Protein backbone atom coordinates (compact mmCIF):
# COMPACT_ATOMS: atom_id res chain seq x y z
CA UNK A 1 0.00 0.00 0.00
CA UNK A 2 1.26 3.45 -0.88
CA UNK A 3 0.42 6.69 0.93
CA UNK A 4 -0.55 10.20 0.00
CA UNK A 5 -1.79 13.47 1.39
CA UNK A 6 -5.03 15.11 0.29
CA UNK A 7 -5.72 18.85 0.25
CA UNK A 8 -8.93 20.83 0.01
CA UNK A 9 -7.20 23.86 1.54
CA UNK A 10 -9.94 24.32 4.11
CA UNK A 11 -10.19 27.65 5.84
CA UNK A 12 -12.94 28.09 8.43
CA UNK A 13 -13.76 31.69 9.25
CA UNK A 14 -12.83 32.76 12.77
CA UNK A 15 -15.71 32.04 15.15
CA UNK A 16 -17.97 35.03 15.52
CA UNK A 17 -16.33 37.01 12.71
CA UNK A 18 -17.80 37.78 9.30
CA UNK A 19 -14.47 37.49 7.44
CA UNK A 20 -11.05 35.85 7.65
CA UNK A 21 -7.96 37.60 8.93
CA UNK A 22 -5.94 39.19 6.11
CA UNK A 23 -3.08 36.65 6.19
CA UNK A 24 -5.15 33.48 6.60
CA UNK A 25 -5.11 32.41 2.93
CA UNK A 26 -1.41 33.24 2.63
CA UNK A 27 -0.73 30.98 5.60
CA UNK A 28 -2.59 27.87 4.43
CA UNK A 29 -0.92 28.03 1.00
CA UNK A 30 2.56 28.24 2.49
CA UNK A 31 1.74 25.69 5.18
CA UNK A 32 0.80 23.24 2.44
CA UNK A 33 4.12 23.80 0.67
CA UNK A 34 5.97 23.04 3.93
CA UNK A 35 3.85 19.97 4.71
CA UNK A 36 4.30 18.41 1.28
CA UNK A 37 8.01 19.19 1.22
CA UNK A 38 8.37 17.35 4.53
CA UNK A 39 6.24 14.43 3.33
CA UNK A 40 8.39 14.15 0.21
CA UNK A 41 11.57 14.02 2.25
CA UNK A 42 10.14 11.19 4.35
CA UNK A 43 9.04 9.07 1.40
CA UNK A 44 5.30 9.76 1.03
CA UNK A 45 4.27 8.66 -2.44
CA UNK A 46 1.52 11.09 -3.49
CA UNK A 47 -0.08 14.44 -2.89
CA UNK A 48 -3.55 15.05 -4.35
CA UNK A 49 -5.15 18.49 -4.45
CA UNK A 50 -8.74 19.32 -5.41
CA UNK A 51 -10.08 21.92 -7.79
CA UNK A 52 -13.10 23.70 -6.32
CA UNK A 53 -14.57 27.11 -6.96
CA UNK A 54 -16.49 29.48 -4.69
CA UNK A 55 -16.82 26.97 -1.83
CA UNK A 56 -15.79 29.39 0.91
CA UNK A 57 -14.31 27.78 4.02
CA UNK A 58 -14.72 24.27 2.58
CA UNK A 59 -12.06 24.64 -0.12
CA UNK A 60 -9.84 27.54 -1.15
CA UNK A 61 -8.10 25.44 -3.78
CA UNK A 62 -9.34 26.88 -7.06
CA UNK A 63 -6.02 26.91 -8.96
CA UNK A 64 -4.27 23.66 -7.99
CA UNK A 65 -2.06 23.79 -11.07
CA UNK A 66 -0.27 26.76 -9.46
CA UNK A 67 0.35 24.88 -6.22
CA UNK A 68 1.48 21.81 -8.16
CA UNK A 69 3.94 23.91 -10.17
CA UNK A 70 5.38 25.34 -6.96
CA UNK A 71 5.61 21.86 -5.42
CA UNK A 72 7.37 20.53 -8.50
CA UNK A 73 10.27 22.80 -7.57
CA UNK A 74 10.27 22.10 -3.83
CA UNK A 75 10.01 18.31 -3.95
CA UNK A 76 11.98 15.52 -5.59
CA UNK A 77 10.04 12.28 -5.66
CA UNK A 78 6.47 12.69 -4.46
CA UNK A 79 3.94 12.34 -7.25
CA UNK A 80 1.81 15.40 -7.91
CA UNK A 81 -1.85 14.52 -8.23
CA UNK A 82 -4.76 16.56 -9.43
CA UNK A 83 -7.57 15.30 -7.26
CA UNK A 84 -9.26 16.32 -9.54
CA UNK A 85 -9.35 18.63 -12.60
CA UNK A 86 -12.93 19.68 -13.38
CA UNK A 87 -13.37 18.46 -16.95
CA UNK A 88 -16.62 20.05 -18.22
CA UNK A 89 -15.46 22.65 -20.78
CA UNK A 90 -17.24 25.46 -18.92
CA UNK A 91 -14.57 25.08 -16.25
CA UNK A 92 -11.54 24.19 -18.35
CA UNK A 93 -11.22 23.81 -22.12
CA UNK A 94 -9.73 20.36 -22.77
CA UNK A 95 -6.84 21.81 -24.76
CA UNK A 96 -5.90 24.04 -21.81
CA UNK A 97 -6.08 21.02 -19.53
CA UNK A 98 -3.80 19.00 -21.81
CA UNK A 99 -1.34 21.89 -22.03
CA UNK A 100 -1.21 22.43 -18.27
CA UNK A 101 -0.89 18.73 -17.42
CA UNK A 102 1.92 18.33 -19.92
CA UNK A 103 3.75 21.46 -18.75
CA UNK A 104 3.54 20.30 -15.13
CA UNK A 105 4.77 16.87 -16.15
CA UNK A 106 7.82 18.47 -17.73
CA UNK A 107 8.49 20.75 -14.75
CA UNK A 108 8.23 17.80 -12.36
CA UNK A 109 10.22 15.35 -14.50
CA UNK A 110 7.24 13.08 -15.05
CA UNK A 111 5.55 13.03 -11.67
CA UNK A 112 1.97 14.01 -12.59
CA UNK A 113 -1.15 12.00 -11.76
CA UNK A 114 -4.05 13.24 -13.92
CA UNK A 115 -7.17 13.03 -11.78
CA UNK A 116 -10.44 13.98 -13.47
CA UNK A 117 -14.01 14.68 -12.38
CA UNK A 118 -17.17 16.58 -13.10
CA UNK A 119 -18.16 18.51 -9.90
CA UNK A 120 -21.51 18.39 -8.18
CA UNK A 121 -22.21 21.52 -6.16
CA UNK A 122 -24.75 24.11 -7.24
CA UNK A 123 -22.31 26.93 -6.40
CA UNK A 124 -19.78 25.63 -8.93
CA UNK A 125 -22.10 24.38 -11.66
CA UNK A 126 -24.17 27.56 -11.51
CA UNK A 127 -21.09 29.80 -11.31
CA UNK A 128 -19.75 28.46 -14.60
CA UNK A 129 -23.14 27.72 -16.18
CA UNK A 130 -22.42 24.00 -16.47
CA UNK A 131 -25.58 21.95 -17.08
CA UNK A 132 -25.95 19.38 -14.30
CA UNK A 133 -27.79 16.95 -16.56
CA UNK A 134 -24.88 16.70 -19.00
CA UNK A 135 -21.85 16.98 -16.73
CA UNK A 136 -21.00 13.28 -16.82
CA UNK A 137 -21.18 13.18 -20.61
CA UNK A 138 -19.01 16.33 -20.70
CA UNK A 139 -16.48 14.70 -18.39
CA UNK A 140 -16.25 11.65 -20.66
CA UNK A 141 -15.91 13.59 -23.90
CA UNK A 142 -13.34 16.05 -22.55
CA UNK A 143 -11.25 13.47 -20.68
CA UNK A 144 -11.00 11.24 -23.75
CA UNK A 145 -10.04 14.16 -25.98
CA UNK A 146 -7.53 15.66 -23.50
CA UNK A 147 -5.78 12.27 -23.47
CA UNK A 148 -5.82 12.22 -27.28
CA UNK A 149 -4.32 15.71 -27.39
CA UNK A 150 -1.36 14.56 -25.30
CA UNK A 151 -0.70 11.67 -27.67
CA UNK A 152 -1.51 12.80 -31.20
CA UNK A 153 0.94 14.89 -33.27
CA UNK A 154 -0.87 16.88 -34.45
CA UNK A 155 -4.17 16.44 -32.62
CA UNK A 156 -6.56 15.60 -35.42
CA UNK A 157 -9.35 17.89 -34.23
CA UNK A 158 -12.79 17.07 -32.95
CA UNK A 159 -16.43 17.83 -33.63
CA UNK A 160 -18.20 16.90 -30.42
CA UNK A 161 -21.37 17.46 -28.48
CA UNK A 162 -19.80 19.78 -25.91
CA UNK A 163 -16.74 21.24 -27.60
CA UNK A 164 -15.16 21.31 -31.03
CA UNK A 165 -11.79 22.40 -32.35
CA UNK A 166 -9.87 22.18 -35.61
CA UNK A 167 -6.64 20.17 -36.00
CA UNK A 168 -3.83 21.71 -33.94
CA UNK A 169 -0.62 20.42 -32.44
CA UNK A 170 -1.31 20.69 -28.70
CA UNK A 171 2.09 21.33 -27.11
CA UNK A 172 4.06 20.64 -25.02
CA UNK A 173 3.72 16.88 -24.82
CA UNK A 174 4.03 15.29 -21.36
CA UNK A 175 7.20 13.64 -20.10
CA UNK A 176 5.32 10.42 -19.29
CA UNK A 177 4.12 8.41 -22.26
CA UNK A 178 1.55 8.04 -23.59
CA UNK A 179 0.21 10.44 -20.92
CA UNK A 180 0.22 10.68 -17.10
CA UNK A 181 -1.85 8.06 -15.24
CA UNK A 182 -5.58 8.78 -15.41
CA UNK A 183 -7.88 8.81 -12.37
CA UNK A 184 -11.51 9.67 -11.77
CA UNK A 185 -13.14 10.90 -8.55
CA UNK A 186 -15.47 8.23 -7.21
CA UNK A 187 -17.75 9.02 -4.29
CA UNK A 188 -20.14 6.17 -5.19
CA UNK A 189 -19.62 2.49 -5.91
CA UNK A 190 -20.99 2.96 -9.45
CA UNK A 191 -18.20 5.37 -10.30
CA UNK A 192 -15.51 2.99 -9.05
CA UNK A 193 -16.87 0.40 -11.46
CA UNK A 194 -17.02 3.04 -14.20
CA UNK A 195 -13.34 3.74 -13.49
CA UNK A 196 -12.57 0.05 -14.03
CA UNK A 197 -14.47 -0.10 -17.32
CA UNK A 198 -12.59 2.97 -18.57
CA UNK A 199 -9.22 1.73 -17.31
CA UNK A 200 -8.80 4.54 -14.80
CA UNK A 201 -7.71 4.69 -11.21
CA UNK A 202 -10.53 5.25 -8.73
CA UNK A 203 -10.02 8.10 -6.27
CA UNK A 204 -12.49 6.90 -3.67
CA UNK A 205 -13.99 9.80 -1.78
CA UNK A 206 -16.51 7.64 0.10
CA UNK A 207 -14.40 6.80 3.17
CA UNK A 208 -14.86 3.09 2.39
CA UNK A 209 -14.40 0.44 5.07
CA UNK A 210 -11.88 -2.41 4.64
CA UNK A 211 -14.80 -4.84 4.09
CA UNK A 212 -16.32 -2.74 1.31
CA UNK A 213 -12.89 -2.29 -0.14
CA UNK A 214 -12.28 -6.01 -0.32
CA UNK A 215 -15.45 -6.56 -2.35
CA UNK A 216 -14.77 -3.61 -4.61
CA UNK A 217 -11.16 -4.59 -5.21
CA UNK A 218 -12.14 -8.02 -6.51
CA UNK A 219 -14.74 -6.59 -8.88
CA UNK A 220 -12.60 -3.64 -9.95
CA UNK A 221 -9.69 -5.83 -11.02
CA UNK A 222 -12.02 -8.39 -12.65
CA UNK A 223 -13.55 -5.64 -14.80
CA UNK A 224 -10.09 -4.32 -15.67
CA UNK A 225 -9.19 -7.80 -16.91
CA UNK A 226 -12.45 -8.74 -18.63
CA UNK A 227 -14.63 -5.74 -19.47
CA UNK A 228 -12.33 -2.76 -19.86
CA UNK A 229 -12.58 -0.35 -22.82
CA UNK A 230 -9.93 2.25 -21.92
CA UNK A 231 -10.74 5.93 -22.22
CA UNK A 232 -7.06 6.79 -22.56
CA UNK A 233 -4.04 5.25 -24.24
CA UNK A 234 -2.87 3.35 -21.17
CA UNK A 235 -4.62 1.78 -18.19
CA UNK A 236 -4.02 3.11 -14.69
CA UNK A 237 -5.21 0.25 -12.50
CA UNK A 238 -5.50 1.55 -8.96
CA UNK A 239 -7.85 1.99 -6.04
CA UNK A 240 -7.29 4.86 -3.65
CA UNK A 241 -9.28 5.60 -0.50
CA UNK A 242 -9.44 8.67 1.73
CA UNK A 243 -9.22 8.67 5.48
CA UNK A 244 -8.74 11.28 8.17
CA UNK A 245 -5.28 11.44 9.70
CA UNK A 246 -3.76 12.84 12.86
CA UNK A 247 -1.18 11.30 15.15
CA UNK A 248 -0.01 11.90 18.69
CA UNK A 249 2.20 10.41 21.38
CA UNK A 250 -0.98 9.25 23.11
CA UNK A 251 -4.45 8.58 21.74
CA UNK A 252 -5.80 11.44 23.81
CA UNK A 253 -3.26 13.83 22.32
CA UNK A 254 -4.11 12.70 18.79
CA UNK A 255 -7.82 13.20 19.41
CA UNK A 256 -7.24 16.62 20.89
CA UNK A 257 -5.12 17.59 17.87
CA UNK A 258 -7.59 16.11 15.43
CA UNK A 259 -9.84 18.79 16.88
CA UNK A 260 -12.86 19.79 14.86
CA UNK A 261 -11.17 18.89 11.58
CA UNK A 262 -13.10 15.83 10.39
CA UNK A 263 -16.42 17.07 11.74
CA UNK A 264 -16.01 20.43 10.00
CA UNK A 265 -14.93 18.67 6.80
CA UNK A 266 -18.15 16.68 6.86
CA UNK A 267 -20.35 19.61 7.89
CA UNK A 268 -19.08 22.00 5.22
CA UNK A 269 -19.14 19.30 2.53
CA UNK A 270 -22.72 18.45 3.44
CA UNK A 271 -23.62 22.14 3.45
CA UNK A 272 -22.41 22.79 -0.10
CA UNK A 273 -23.54 19.51 -1.64
CA UNK A 274 -27.03 19.70 -0.21
CA UNK A 275 -28.98 21.51 -2.96
CA UNK A 276 -31.09 23.32 -0.35
CA UNK A 277 -28.33 24.77 1.83
CA UNK A 278 -25.63 24.89 -0.87
CA UNK A 279 -28.01 26.32 -3.44
CA UNK A 280 -28.98 29.17 -1.14
CA UNK A 281 -25.47 30.05 0.06
CA UNK A 282 -24.98 33.81 0.40
CA UNK A 283 -21.50 34.45 -1.07
CA UNK A 284 -19.21 36.47 1.14
CA UNK A 285 -21.66 36.63 4.03
CA UNK A 286 -22.25 33.29 5.69
CA UNK A 287 -19.94 32.02 8.44
CA UNK A 288 -20.18 28.24 8.05
CA UNK A 289 -17.85 27.62 10.99
CA UNK A 290 -20.29 29.39 13.29
CA UNK A 291 -23.19 27.26 12.05
CA UNK A 292 -21.00 24.18 12.46
CA UNK A 293 -20.27 25.01 16.10
CA UNK A 294 -23.94 25.63 16.69
CA UNK A 295 -24.90 22.29 15.11
CA UNK A 296 -22.33 20.47 17.20
CA UNK A 297 -23.76 21.74 20.44
CA UNK A 298 -26.70 19.48 19.60
CA UNK A 299 -24.99 16.54 17.91
CA UNK A 300 -21.69 16.35 19.82
CA UNK A 301 -19.65 14.95 16.92
CA UNK A 302 -16.39 16.61 17.87
CA UNK A 303 -13.71 13.97 18.08
CA UNK A 304 -12.14 15.12 21.34
CA UNK A 305 -15.51 15.13 23.07
CA UNK A 306 -16.64 11.86 21.54
CA UNK A 307 -13.45 9.89 22.03
CA UNK A 308 -12.76 6.66 20.20
CA UNK A 309 -15.88 4.72 19.40
CA UNK A 310 -15.84 1.02 18.64
CA UNK A 311 -16.09 0.34 14.92
CA UNK A 312 -19.19 -1.82 15.38
CA UNK A 313 -20.93 1.01 17.24
CA UNK A 314 -20.06 3.44 14.48
CA UNK A 315 -21.40 1.10 11.80
CA UNK A 316 -24.62 0.48 13.73
CA UNK A 317 -25.76 4.08 13.33
CA UNK A 318 -24.66 4.57 9.75
CA UNK A 319 -27.12 6.07 7.25
CA UNK A 320 -28.34 3.77 4.45
CA UNK A 321 -27.78 6.25 1.68
CA UNK A 322 -24.26 6.20 0.22
CA UNK A 323 -23.47 9.92 0.14
CA UNK A 324 -24.87 10.55 3.60
CA UNK A 325 -22.90 7.56 4.82
CA UNK A 326 -19.68 9.07 3.46
CA UNK A 327 -20.40 12.33 5.28
CA UNK A 328 -21.08 10.44 8.49
CA UNK A 329 -17.87 8.47 8.20
CA UNK A 330 -15.81 11.55 7.38
CA UNK A 331 -16.91 13.06 10.66
CA UNK A 332 -16.92 10.05 12.96
CA UNK A 333 -14.57 7.26 12.02
CA UNK A 334 -11.04 8.61 12.06
CA UNK A 335 -9.26 5.61 10.70
CA UNK A 336 -5.79 7.01 11.03
CA UNK A 337 -6.14 9.05 14.20
CA UNK A 338 -4.17 7.94 17.23
CA UNK A 339 -0.79 6.62 18.33
CA UNK A 340 1.70 4.80 16.12
CA UNK A 341 0.31 1.44 17.22
CA UNK A 342 -3.33 2.34 16.67
CA UNK A 343 -2.74 3.91 13.25
CA UNK A 344 -0.51 1.06 12.12
CA UNK A 345 -3.08 -1.55 13.11
CA UNK A 346 -5.93 0.25 11.35
CA UNK A 347 -3.93 0.72 8.17
CA UNK A 348 -2.96 -2.93 8.18
CA UNK A 349 -6.63 -3.87 7.73
CA UNK A 350 -6.65 -1.96 4.44
CA UNK A 351 -3.34 -3.42 3.39
CA UNK A 352 -4.70 -6.92 4.05
CA UNK A 353 -7.52 -6.13 1.61
CA UNK A 354 -5.09 -5.10 -1.14
CA UNK A 355 -5.70 -1.36 -1.14
CA UNK A 356 -3.33 0.34 -3.58
CA UNK A 357 -3.18 3.86 -2.13
CA UNK A 358 -4.32 5.32 1.19
CA UNK A 359 -4.72 9.09 1.08
CA UNK A 360 -4.70 11.06 4.32
CA UNK A 361 -6.88 14.08 4.97
CA UNK A 362 -4.63 15.92 7.40
CA UNK A 363 -5.39 19.55 6.59
CA UNK A 364 -9.03 20.19 7.49
CA UNK A 365 -11.12 22.40 9.70
CA UNK A 366 -9.21 24.28 12.36
CA UNK A 367 -6.34 21.86 12.79
CA UNK A 368 -2.96 23.37 13.48
CA UNK A 369 -0.07 23.35 11.01
CA UNK A 370 2.48 22.26 13.63
CA UNK A 371 0.36 19.25 14.58
CA UNK A 372 0.04 18.22 10.92
CA UNK A 373 3.82 18.54 10.52
CA UNK A 374 4.46 16.40 13.61
CA UNK A 375 1.99 13.78 12.39
CA UNK A 376 3.62 13.59 8.97
CA UNK A 377 7.00 13.20 10.60
CA UNK A 378 5.85 10.55 13.06
CA UNK A 379 4.13 8.53 10.36
CA UNK A 380 7.03 8.89 7.95
CA UNK A 381 9.58 7.69 10.47
CA UNK A 382 7.65 5.11 12.48
CA UNK A 383 5.14 3.51 10.12
CA UNK A 384 5.86 4.21 6.46
CA UNK A 385 9.08 2.13 6.09
CA UNK A 386 7.49 -1.22 6.93
CA UNK A 387 4.55 -0.58 4.58
CA UNK A 388 6.97 0.37 1.81
CA UNK A 389 8.86 -2.86 2.29
CA UNK A 390 5.70 -4.96 2.12
CA UNK A 391 4.46 -2.98 -0.87
CA UNK A 392 7.55 -3.81 -2.88
CA UNK A 393 7.63 -7.41 -1.74
CA UNK A 394 3.97 -8.45 -1.61
CA UNK A 395 1.63 -5.95 -3.21
CA UNK A 396 3.65 -5.52 -6.38
CA UNK A 397 3.52 -9.27 -6.93
CA UNK A 398 -0.23 -9.35 -6.19
CA UNK A 399 -0.84 -6.58 -8.73
CA UNK A 400 1.27 -8.31 -11.34
CA UNK A 401 -0.87 -11.40 -10.93
CA UNK A 402 -4.12 -9.41 -11.16
CA UNK A 403 -3.02 -7.59 -14.28
CA UNK A 404 -1.20 -10.40 -16.07
CA UNK A 405 -4.03 -11.13 -18.54
CA UNK A 406 -4.44 -7.46 -19.53
CA UNK A 407 -3.49 -6.95 -23.14
CA UNK A 408 -3.17 -3.15 -23.13
CA UNK A 409 -0.41 -0.76 -22.00
CA UNK A 410 -0.42 -0.04 -18.26
CA UNK A 411 1.19 3.12 -16.91
CA UNK A 412 0.28 3.06 -13.25
CA UNK A 413 2.77 4.49 -10.74
CA UNK A 414 1.61 2.04 -8.07
Amino acid at each position, binding site marked *: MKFGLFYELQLPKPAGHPQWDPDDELKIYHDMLDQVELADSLGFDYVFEVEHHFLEEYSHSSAPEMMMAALSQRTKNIRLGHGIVLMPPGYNHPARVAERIAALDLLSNGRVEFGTGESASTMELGGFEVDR*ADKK*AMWEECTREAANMMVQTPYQGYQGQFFSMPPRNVIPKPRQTPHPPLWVAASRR*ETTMLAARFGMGSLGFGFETPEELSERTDEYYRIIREECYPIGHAINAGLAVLTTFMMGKTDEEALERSANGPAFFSHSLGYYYNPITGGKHQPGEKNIYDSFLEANKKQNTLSAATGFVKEEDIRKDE*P*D*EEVQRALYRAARSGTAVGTVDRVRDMLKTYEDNHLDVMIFVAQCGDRKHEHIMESIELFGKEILPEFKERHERDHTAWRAEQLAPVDFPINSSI
Partner: protein
Amino acid sequence: MPRPDQVQDPELRNLFEQAQGSMKSGLANDAVQTLVDALHRLLELKPELASEQLEPRPGWKMHFLSRWPQLGANFVKGSLDKNEPEIEFVKENFALSEAITYYEFTLETAIKRGA
Protein backbone atom coordinates in the same frame (compact mmCIF):
# COMPACT_ATOMS: atom_id res chain seq x y z
CA MET B 1 -20.20 -7.91 -6.42
CA PRO B 2 -23.05 -7.73 -8.93
CA ARG B 3 -22.82 -9.69 -12.15
CA PRO B 4 -25.66 -10.56 -14.55
CA ASP B 5 -25.34 -14.29 -13.83
CA GLN B 6 -26.42 -13.56 -10.24
CA VAL B 7 -29.84 -12.33 -11.43
CA GLN B 8 -32.46 -15.01 -10.92
CA ASP B 9 -35.25 -13.89 -13.26
CA PRO B 10 -34.34 -15.00 -16.81
CA GLU B 11 -36.00 -12.03 -18.50
CA LEU B 12 -34.23 -9.53 -16.27
CA ARG B 13 -30.91 -11.36 -16.62
CA ASN B 14 -31.27 -11.26 -20.37
CA LEU B 15 -31.82 -7.49 -20.29
CA PHE B 16 -28.62 -6.97 -18.29
CA GLU B 17 -26.65 -9.18 -20.69
CA GLN B 18 -28.11 -7.24 -23.60
CA ALA B 19 -27.12 -3.93 -21.98
CA GLN B 20 -23.64 -5.26 -21.31
CA GLY B 21 -23.31 -6.20 -24.98
CA SER B 22 -24.46 -2.76 -26.10
CA MET B 23 -21.91 -1.07 -23.83
CA LYS B 24 -19.11 -3.26 -25.15
CA SER B 25 -20.11 -2.22 -28.68
CA GLY B 26 -20.18 1.44 -27.67
CA LEU B 27 -23.95 1.69 -28.19
CA ALA B 28 -24.78 3.83 -25.17
CA ASN B 29 -28.28 4.83 -26.29
CA ASP B 30 -29.31 1.20 -26.77
CA ALA B 31 -27.84 0.30 -23.40
CA VAL B 32 -29.76 3.03 -21.56
CA GLN B 33 -33.04 2.05 -23.25
CA THR B 34 -32.45 -1.58 -22.24
CA LEU B 35 -31.66 -0.56 -18.66
CA VAL B 36 -34.89 1.42 -18.45
CA ASP B 37 -36.64 -1.77 -19.59
CA ALA B 38 -34.72 -3.61 -16.87
CA LEU B 39 -35.94 -1.12 -14.26
CA HIS B 40 -39.53 -1.67 -15.42
CA ARG B 41 -39.09 -5.44 -15.19
CA LEU B 42 -37.54 -5.07 -11.73
CA LEU B 43 -40.56 -3.06 -10.60
CA GLU B 44 -42.85 -5.82 -11.89
CA LEU B 45 -40.91 -8.38 -9.88
CA LYS B 46 -40.45 -6.22 -6.79
CA PRO B 47 -43.34 -3.71 -6.72
CA GLU B 48 -42.48 -2.74 -3.15
CA LEU B 49 -39.46 -0.85 -4.57
CA ALA B 50 -41.85 1.84 -5.82
CA SER B 51 -42.57 2.95 -2.27
CA GLU B 52 -39.33 1.97 -0.51
CA GLN B 53 -37.90 4.76 1.62
CA LEU B 54 -34.42 5.53 2.91
CA GLU B 55 -33.73 7.56 6.02
CA PRO B 56 -30.42 9.32 5.33
CA ARG B 57 -30.69 11.26 8.57
CA PRO B 58 -33.07 10.89 11.48
CA GLY B 59 -36.42 12.33 10.49
CA TRP B 60 -35.52 12.81 6.84
CA LYS B 61 -37.08 10.32 4.41
CA MET B 62 -36.27 9.93 0.74
CA HIS B 63 -37.44 7.49 -1.92
CA PHE B 64 -34.92 4.77 -2.59
CA LEU B 65 -35.53 5.23 -6.31
CA SER B 66 -34.48 8.87 -6.10
CA ARG B 67 -30.97 7.38 -6.23
CA TRP B 68 -31.68 6.27 -9.82
CA PRO B 69 -29.20 8.38 -11.81
CA GLN B 70 -30.80 11.52 -13.24
CA LEU B 71 -28.72 11.53 -16.40
CA GLY B 72 -31.41 11.97 -19.03
CA ALA B 73 -33.70 9.00 -18.39
CA ASN B 74 -35.37 10.69 -15.45
CA PHE B 75 -38.43 10.03 -13.34
CA VAL B 76 -41.42 12.15 -14.31
CA LYS B 77 -41.72 14.87 -11.70
CA GLY B 78 -44.05 13.81 -8.92
CA SER B 79 -44.28 10.19 -10.03
CA LEU B 80 -42.12 8.96 -7.16
CA ASP B 81 -44.24 10.83 -4.63
CA LYS B 82 -47.29 8.98 -5.94
CA ASN B 83 -45.36 5.68 -5.69
CA GLU B 84 -45.96 5.26 -9.42
CA PRO B 85 -42.46 5.71 -10.87
CA GLU B 86 -42.51 6.67 -14.53
CA ILE B 87 -39.44 7.36 -16.69
CA GLU B 88 -39.23 10.07 -19.33
CA PHE B 89 -36.30 10.64 -21.70
CA VAL B 90 -35.23 14.28 -21.53
CA LYS B 91 -32.48 13.85 -24.11
CA GLU B 92 -31.77 11.62 -27.10
CA ASN B 93 -28.07 10.88 -26.86
CA PHE B 94 -26.26 9.26 -23.97
CA ALA B 95 -22.58 8.87 -23.21
CA LEU B 96 -21.07 5.51 -22.36
CA SER B 97 -20.29 6.70 -18.83
CA GLU B 98 -23.99 7.44 -18.33
CA ALA B 99 -24.99 4.00 -19.57
CA ILE B 100 -22.45 2.38 -17.24
CA THR B 101 -23.81 4.36 -14.29
CA TYR B 102 -27.37 3.19 -15.02
CA TYR B 103 -26.10 -0.37 -15.44
CA GLU B 104 -24.22 -0.50 -12.14
CA PHE B 105 -27.08 0.99 -10.14
CA THR B 106 -29.82 -1.18 -11.64
CA LEU B 107 -27.85 -4.41 -11.52
CA GLU B 108 -26.79 -3.91 -7.90
CA THR B 109 -30.37 -3.06 -6.91
CA ALA B 110 -31.73 -6.16 -8.65
CA ILE B 111 -29.26 -8.52 -7.03
CA LYS B 112 -29.61 -7.02 -3.55
CA ARG B 113 -33.40 -7.47 -3.81
CA GLY B 114 -33.04 -11.10 -4.95
CA ALA B 115 -34.73 -10.47 -8.30
